[in-house]
């Protein structure tokens, strides 16, 4: 069993965390643990090396999985304990990409959609008030029109 140590500052949600990570081990470190190792939360013991103190991420070839180093502990006999938690995102990155699901949020849509998004901050009180004038497409009002009076009189009587 070997592990490869990284120092990564990538968002935990990112599938690929090693591309831009600092590779701390030129060659994988062989692990010779004497205790049990858990698949999900393994603890690896390696020889103490100050370079490894900055590691926060590793790959274990036996499990073929990537792990976050949650903490490390310096043990006796110059041993460094790396306490890890599995990172399923990178470990199963290709499978995740191929996973079919109902995508309910996505970044590269780049703008709000018609789906109501209550997470988007909307000022509950402030409104931008504006207006659109509907152009007249025919005759228009004319308040200065001369013949704008309408006189209605009783009718029907003959003029003598």
């Amino acid at each position, binding site marked *: 069993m070997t592990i490869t140590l990284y120092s990564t500052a990538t968002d935990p949600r990112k599938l690929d965390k090693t591309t831009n990570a600092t590779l701390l081990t030129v060659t994988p470190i062989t692990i010779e643990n004497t205790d049990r190792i858990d698949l999900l939360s393994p603890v690896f013991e390696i020889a103490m090396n100050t370079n490894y103190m900055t590691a926060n991420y590793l790959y274990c070839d036996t499990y073929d999985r990537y792990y976050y180093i949650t903490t490390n502990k310096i043990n006796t006999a110059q041993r460094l304990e790396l306490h890890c938690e599995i990172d*399923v995102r990178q470990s199963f990155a290709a499978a995740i990409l191929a996973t079919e*699901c109902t995508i309910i949020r996505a970044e*590269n849509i780049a703008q709000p959609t*018609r789906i109501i998004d209550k997470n988007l901050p909307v000022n509950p009180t402030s409104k931008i008030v504006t207006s659109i*004038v509907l152009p007249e497409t025919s005759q228009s009002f004319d308040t200065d029109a001369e013949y704008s009076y309408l*006189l209605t009189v009783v009718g029907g009587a003959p003029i003598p």
Partner: protein
Amino acid sequence: MTVDTSIWGSPYTEYDTMNARTGAADLDDTDFEDFPPFVKNDMSALGTNPTGGRIVNEALYIGYLNASHGFWDFNHPLDQTICYTALANPDLPLNDIGAVGTDAFAEPISDSYNFLPPKRDEAWLYKQKKNDPQPICFINCYSYMHDRPTTTGTSQLTGILYNPMYSNSYPTRFLYYVGGGYDSANAGYDTNTHLNNVNINLYMSYWRDFGIRSLFGVIMVYYFDGTYDTKTGLPQNIEVTPQSLHWYESQTELWRHGHPIISAYLDVYIRSNTDGTYSNSRRVDQCFIPDTTCNLRFNDSWGTISEKHVWQPISNYYKNSKNYMPLFGHAPAGSGVTNTPNVIASIGNQKLDGTGGVSSTSGILLGTKYVNSGFKTDTTSTVGLRSFWCELEGDIEDNLEMLRKTAAGYGLFFSDDVYDLADAGRDEDRWTDEKMCLGVIKSNGYTDGTYTKGSGNTAAPNYIWKTASQSNYDPSRPPPSPENTYNTQTVFNSIGDLATMTKRYVINASAVQQLAASLWSISSALSDGGTDFTDLTDKYIDMFLTNNPIDAIVSLQRYPMSIPKVSSTTIKLGKTDTGIAAYEMEKTAYFYLFYGSTINPKFGDSFLDYEPYTKMELYIPFCGTIQLNPADIIGRTLNVQLVVDFTTGTATGFIMSDDLVIETVNGNIAIDIPVTGTQAVTVASQLNNAIANKANRTLESQSASLGNVSIGGLMRIVKDPIKMIYSYQEARNEEERAEYDLQHQNAPIHIIGSASAVGGWAIDLQCRLIIYYPSGDVIITGQPPQWNDVQLARYGRTTGFACCIEGQISSMNSGLVVGTAPDLNGMVTNVHGYAATAAELDLLRAAIAEGVII
């Protein structure tokens, strides 16, 4: 089948649709021909230049293509239909296609497929229709199904139709699946040296004129032709039904075994070696016998041949190789087909994958497990025909299933019911879905013996065609239901002339002043010469039908426009011509104004553009404002038609989304100029009443909420002792109604005009859509609260924009993706492909729900 089900889907959920499309009579829902492409076509009407409904829909279209190109492909789009080599070349004249022996029928026997190029399909079909009234896929197609090619390329089997024509009105055996043997490794194959044993006969029937899909494979246990039958001299027929085996009674009792499911009559013609010498060691190789669950036992009349062989379903070959199963076109290819057969001319004349071709003594022959040794030899020294019977022992259903799988390997419709389909195929009542099977062709073009029955697909989803040349036919659509007749245009009628009891004059301000003065003059003139007011009143009544000249004036209004006028005249009050210049008004009493503008979304047509985030109000001059739903007008043209009624002085605004009226609102447009003191008081009274009414209702509603202590509340209690409680909501509603009345009965212009004719008109006389947009929570110095691109980008990166997309996570290409209900099939690690544990699956589900960044 899952007919893989893409194409066929459920025949019964859509047959009504098809009937609707084709106008075919509605058949009962168990008729196979009721679902596409089994629409009835009258092939006899095709003639030499057919125009009638051969190709009535995509399904049949595909069917033709696949058949004529020798391949049935249920999943590929049309332009990916595998076809013959020549068809794959769009430059090849179609004239070269269709004749036996040309490249058109040279099968694509390499590992690579030839795909039907765009437009070739249409041309191909055109050719069929234009020049060839008969389905070309059957014309001049060799159908010899012998197990070896010959030097002449002709069939070896008697009884096979080389050129099956649709004119055969009864099921015709066109494809003849036989096992076979040969008598020496390199011997040329001839008509006399072959072994016939278990056979699959594919019958095609045109009797329903379905087109290519009328091909039906019918599993028939084979007898054989009596030519070589030296045993009885009679044709022997064995028919198999799922439950029993029937022999014709002509067969001797000797061969009626206890449990044979399939018996076949074997003819082995023993002949001399190619060198003319006689050999008494003829191997009988290659028997097409069902799989390991079935044993083949040969029993000849001498009882000497008995051996077990293994049936290798033909589909296994296709499943395991990179080839596929052609249906038509058998052009013996390659060199040495005579003595060095590197092309196996079994069904489809399929070339196998053996290096340098398949020799006669090694490799795998199509559909057969080659048995090179261990077979019983025939030790008879008699040259000539030897006959055997073979039995397939085993469970009836197992054996039949093996046969079904083999037939399914052709990807055709078939049936295991020889009675109902082969023998009595013309009796449509026997064609039921339970009896009809269809071999499934996988999306990769292989068959694997899977089949399905129509009865098993009644709930299967329907296929949606996705070809570039697809018609609008969508089999997945439910049968069309009667729809309402939709209309999106409101019709405005032309209003004709209006007859009135009054007379209307269009005048100017000067005339108004003259008229006022004139009234005094009239009065003075009439009173001159006397002070007897009784006489004066009589004169008034005589002159004006009233006792006061001013009462002859019904109304005086001013409108904010030039009133339509016609001929000039003078104002006449009763019998008195005042001589004041005026115009007669047009008889039509209306005036129209139009407004319109396209309303575009502000936030990319997102949810922010709609309620409750965005609100819209429309102000219409003289009519006030009305709230509109943005969803009704965004992306459309908001039109307003304002109709002015000169008779009543009112205006009605018709609010239209495009051309359809969605709201109406009323208001008063005319300024009523008080002529008398009474009129002025009336106008003021209306205004005061409305205001007071509103105030009263408001008080009532407020009081009701405080425990019915107000006058209004107490009064209501007294009025309605049973109810005892004056509903707050009731009062509130009345308040709102009163407010509405105030706004509408006493529109602002009317009120202002009554008090101040000039001031009222200072209000906006344009239609104006007032929009209340939402604003973001982020404040940028010097700008109103809003979102900007930077903030939206950040939001997308951290939270993601809400959406609802079904697809793979990778379809988002980049950035944050949040999903729900993931299909966690195939979750394996990146490098070694270790499958995820249950705990990891939970973590993966949570990770996708939380979001992953690609």
